[in-house]
């Protein structure tokens, strides 16, 4: 089913550094290979420094914990070797039937949906191309529509986390930001310490009532702390504000910039797909390719409602990068899950194609919450040999979602063209 490429193992002499892939903080975690020997081609991360470091972060600990099994051997690549997916002896027995059935369904399907959670650029590129090639629809069920709509209406004055850490004196957390990004404050504190800067003032607004009070008083800058802040940043938890509150915040932020610097940092998911879809098509999801050129589906619905992704289709390709990513809704006769293993309950899933986890098992790119910056995830560094940086990567236990999507697309389209 997948290409089988010989994987050469190499011993790792140097401590390695990896950027934690699970949130935009770009936490740099050390991985000491000397303390964690390779055993039978596998580098077990249980108990190593990656795990112990990340245990201070609930999000990372949870996700790393699920991936103890996935910690693969490293392969040393040189610049001439392809990074086609490597299948390292994993059993794919049974998948061949699913693969065949999926190709057959896709080659006959009149209505195809591509949906799910997409967190990296490569998968986003493949998803847009798949939807375009099948003349199907591309949804993004996890996208924060309120933010994209507010951006279209108002624009914004924003920032990124490291800039806030260095340039702000006060940060305001709107909603449970720390629950979603547990190391955010610590990460910013580390940067401020490195630059010998005073600690940031932190304000938390956890309820709608507190927010209403802030609006009432804040518009006149009667809050003492707001009045004294010369450089502010507003971190907004996903889903905490509705579109009207976002509009109010953006207006307020705009006004504050008359006398000081103030920026919003929406910690939303879905930025990667929006960015990639915009450069590939000029538009952002949800998109309909049924007439050839992409059309935005948002404008087929009323101005205040989101498009309804629950429509019947012949095939739904559902992206599920993490084990705790959403499960597919029963919207299609046949659902192909690309990503993590999915319990085959109640959803009527027929085919699951296990793929590598972005940032852990495959190198990929992701955009941060502000929608402007991409970082390399899973980037590993040989710390004593600066010129060999990037030559050592995690071996890929499974093919990437982008690769599986591209193969599904090209092979089923080829079948469509067969007489």
């Amino acid at each position, binding site marked *: 089913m997948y290409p089988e490429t010989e994987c050469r193992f190499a011993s790792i002499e140097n401590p390695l*550094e990896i950027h934690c892939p699970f949130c935009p903080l770009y936490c740099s975690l050390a991985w000491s290979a000397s303390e964690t020997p390779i055993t039978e081609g596998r580098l077990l991360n249980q108990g190593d420094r990656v795990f112990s470091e990340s245990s201070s972060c609930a999000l990372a600990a949870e996700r790393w914990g699920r991936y103890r099994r996935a910690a693969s051997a490293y392969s040393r*690549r040189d*610049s*001439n070797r*392809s*990074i*086609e997916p490597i299948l390292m002896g994993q059993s794919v027995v049974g998948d061949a039937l699913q693969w065949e059935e999926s190709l057959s369904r896709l080659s006959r399907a009149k209505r195809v949906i591509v949906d799910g959670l997409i967190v990296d*650029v*490569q998968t986003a*590129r493949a998803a*847009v191309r798949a939807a*375009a090639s099948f003349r199907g629809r591309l949804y993004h069920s996890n996208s924060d529509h309120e933010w*994209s709509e507010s*951006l*279209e*209406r*108002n*624009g*914004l*004055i*924003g*920032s*990124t986390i*490291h*800039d806030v850490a*260095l*340039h702000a004196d006060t940060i305001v957390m709107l909603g449970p930001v720390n629950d979603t990004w547990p190391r955010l404050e610590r990460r910013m504190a580390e*940067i401020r310490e490195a630059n010998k800067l005073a600690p940031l003032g932190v304000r938390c607004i956890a309820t709608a009532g507190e927010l209403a009070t802030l609006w009432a008083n804040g518009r006149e800058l009667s809050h003492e702390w707001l009045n004294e802040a*010369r*450089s502010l940043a507003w971190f907004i938890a996903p889903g905490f504000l509705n579109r009207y509150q976002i509009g109010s915040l953006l207006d307020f932020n705009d006004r504050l910039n008359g006398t*000081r*610097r103030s920026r919003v940092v929406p910690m939303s998911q879905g930025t990667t797909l929006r*960015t*990639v879809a*915009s*450069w*590939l098509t*000029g*538009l*952002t999801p949800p998109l309909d390719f049924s*007439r*050839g*050129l*992409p*059309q*935005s589906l948002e404008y087929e619905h009323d101005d205040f409602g989101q498009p309804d992704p629950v429509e019947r289709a012949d095939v739904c390709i559902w992206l599920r990068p993490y084990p705790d990513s959403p499960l597919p809704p029963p919207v299609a006769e046949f659902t192909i899950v690309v990503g993590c293993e999915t319990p085959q309950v109640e959803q009527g899933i027929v085919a699951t194609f296990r793929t590598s986890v972005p940032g852990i098992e495959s190198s990929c*790119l992701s*955009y941060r919450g*502000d*929608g*402007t*910056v*991409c970082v*390399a995830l899973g980037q590993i*560094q040989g710390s004593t*040999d*600066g010129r060999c*940086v*990037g*030559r050592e990567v995690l071996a890929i236990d499974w093919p990437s979602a982008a690769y599986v999507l591209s193969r599904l697309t090209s092979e089923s389209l080829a079948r469509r063209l067969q007489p």
Partner: protein
Amino acid sequence: MKIRLRNAEVYDPPSGRDGQRCDLFIDGQNIVAPLPERPFVADAEFDLSGHFVMAGAIDLHTHIGGGKAAIARMLMPELLRPVSEPERGSNLRDPLLLRRQDSFLPPAPYVGRRYIEMGYTACFEPAMLPCNARGTHAELADTPLIDAGAYVVLGNDHILLSMLRDKVDQRLINCYVAATVHATRAMGVKVVNAGGISAFKFNQRHLDVDEVHPHYGITPAQIIRSLACAVDAIGLPQPLHVHASNLGMAGNIESTLKTIAAAAGHRIHLTHVQFHCYGKEGSRGFSSGSEQLVAALQANPNVTIDVGQVMFGQTVTISADAMHQYHARRYAKPRKSVIVDIECEAGCGVVPFKYEHRRYVHALQWAIGLELFLMLDNPERVFLTTDHPNGGPFTTYPHIMRLLMDASFRETALSEVDAEAAAASQLSGLSRCYTLTDIAKMTRSAPASFLGLTQQGHLQPGAIADITVYRHASDWEATFARPTHVFRRGRLVVRDGQLIDQAPTVLHALRPDYDPADLQKLQRYFQQVGNGGPQMLQISDDELSSLIGAEPCNHSCGTAKEMLV
């Protein structure tokens, strides 16, 4: 494949051909000279009687990647809905390449298509932030059919400014610049409003070339001098690409002249210089500074320019210069904008804008651009750009070429703009007309030489067979808008102005040398921004070819010899 182009009327300044008729021979990806003892047996022949031929054109400054355009598209989808156009006989496999109506901000695949249909075979994104290098290359890889590359933005990054504040040895700054270019696979270094974007993050709203930065205690002049020195020292073919201070402000010609002085004899390229060429004279307090600038250019042979010509109509301005874009928000049309600080490296500002021919300032901007083209008599030092999409979309290039080549057309166009602006400009007194050789220099040989692309921009044996064929017509705009044939790396990809074949992107990158031991000495600066520095940004050849999906083409510095990987 072997191809013979018969009776080609060739305009190729490097070989001295100025319209002479000859045959051109293509073997594989290259132009060749057939050996006398071995007759050239062509697989295909084209009779080009009635046509003229130039190398593929090169756009050295066009914003076609790097996140800014994506934000702009997300900001105003209402202005960018695609409208399809009928396309007969197309067998293109990629649905994202379908023909659509031109807009001021087409998506990446369509950018590639429109460029190649206009005879452009190489285009360079001028503002790639180091932290966004991967995203930029992915976006460029999705811009098919052309050669591409990007210039990395430095000069507002916390690392460099801290190093200058601490007065570290220039050798270490050279190392940092080289390592950043190497890691991000850049084709040059650009500085945008040196120090100004950073100052804006500290709530300073203005920073002139000789003003002291409120936090780092250094001046933009120091930043420019240090970066220009580093670019020369590490052997980059292209000089430091400079977006000067005070873009768009009346009287900013003074800042531009100070910027030239700040370079202290090092090579610099002043980009979209039309936006930096304004005086304060006249009743409106806004006048042309083109005479002063041209005089300065004549006195400083180390300086080149591209124009950033303004064209009338709706567009969007996208720039790393967040300080300027914050000021420009008040002129936004439609009235919305995005201003973002990015990762202690620079910023980003997106402001939609409409240039109107009856507005004094806009009309004078248009005229100043043309003055610069026509006053500077050496077309090898002035390059054709609109700073796409800032001055207007790249699809207006054929119109600009007609304005430069046809004095009566120019006169008519001048009569249609704001009369006061027309009177304030010197354009009516400039009778010079560009020749085909001038166009070939400005859009082919000079940018290739500038970028160190030794195998492009000319038609001599050994060159890559990027060839554009035009039909002679009375209307230069129609001629340049629709080449009859475009060969890219030896393959016919455009015929009669229509795309007929697909080809992947080739990504050019420089690989300057540096001493890793020197880089280690800078670790504390990298820790201050928490990103690990250039080492963490490293993009490998196989990542580019397998993961990102473009064909890497590396150039070693100093020799700039192309090495396809």
